[in-house]
């Protein structure tokens, strides 16, 4: 077994264990922290796939901004009951069926291929500027709208 394959198995097991912890956590704060662990484990898997820049981007934006934002929301949110989902035969069977369906589909198409952790040297900035500036504008507008919506919530709260 190559070291990179062992690292991939370790990162994958960490991500799956954190996902189970997220779903089964009694407190939403611990569920959000588990989401951060999933983000970091995912970044390790991105590195092993060769996406070094994307791994760092994931940590900076997703874990550093999105998960932190969720964490503050959970902390500042009023205490309401948040019962964790119960594990029943039906729910466990449905999750197993979803896993089998998705894994079988992905494996049928891509499973037999080899992945080499060679880095991806595509120039994202020039690709965005030349061919993908429309999606970039859409994402920018969506993020600006989120900021405006946050201000609107604050103003409405003060009026109340």
């Amino acid at each position, binding site marked *: 077994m190559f070291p990179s394959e062992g690292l991939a198995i370790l990162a*994958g097991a960490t991500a799956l264990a954190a996902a189970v912890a997220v779903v089964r956590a009694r407190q939403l704060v611990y569920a959000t922290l588990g989401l951060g662990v999933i983000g970091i484990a995912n970044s390790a898997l991105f590195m092993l796939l060769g996406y070094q820049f994307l791994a760092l981007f994931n940590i900076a934006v997703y874990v550093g901004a999105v998960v932190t934002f969720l964490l503050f929301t959970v902390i500042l949110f009023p205490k309401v009951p948040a019962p964790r989902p119960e594990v029943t035969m039906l729910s466990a069977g449905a999750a197993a069926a979803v896993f089998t369906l998705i894994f079988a589909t992905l494996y049928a198409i891509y499973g037999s291929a080899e992945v080499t952790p060679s880095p991806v040297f595509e120039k994202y900035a020039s690709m965005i500027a030349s061919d993908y500036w429309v999606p970039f504008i859409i994402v920018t507008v969506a993020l600006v709208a989120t900021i405006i919506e946050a201000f609107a919530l604050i103003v409405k709260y003060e009026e109340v």
Partner: protein
Amino acid sequence: MEAVVFLATAAGLIAVGAFGIAGSRNLVRILISLEVMFNGALLALLTAARVAGTPGYGGLLALFSIGMAAAEVGVAVAIAILAFRVFGDVDVEKMSSLKG
């Protein structure tokens, strides 16, 4: 290194996220489970792009996806806050109408 490790992890994350969404009644817990599914889908996308020989385009799509996920989380949290103001709770079972 075979791609099966990445694909199994992605499928597992999607399945666990789906279990969390289906079994939860709290809107914030549903949102967190949705983000678990997003992570699985992102990993599947990047693995497929790597195997298919188009890693640049897959990485670019993942960049935009992470940006849109950030905007989506902001909108979902705002909906949860407004739902709490209107209904006094974030239990989805009690949100049976759009009044307010």
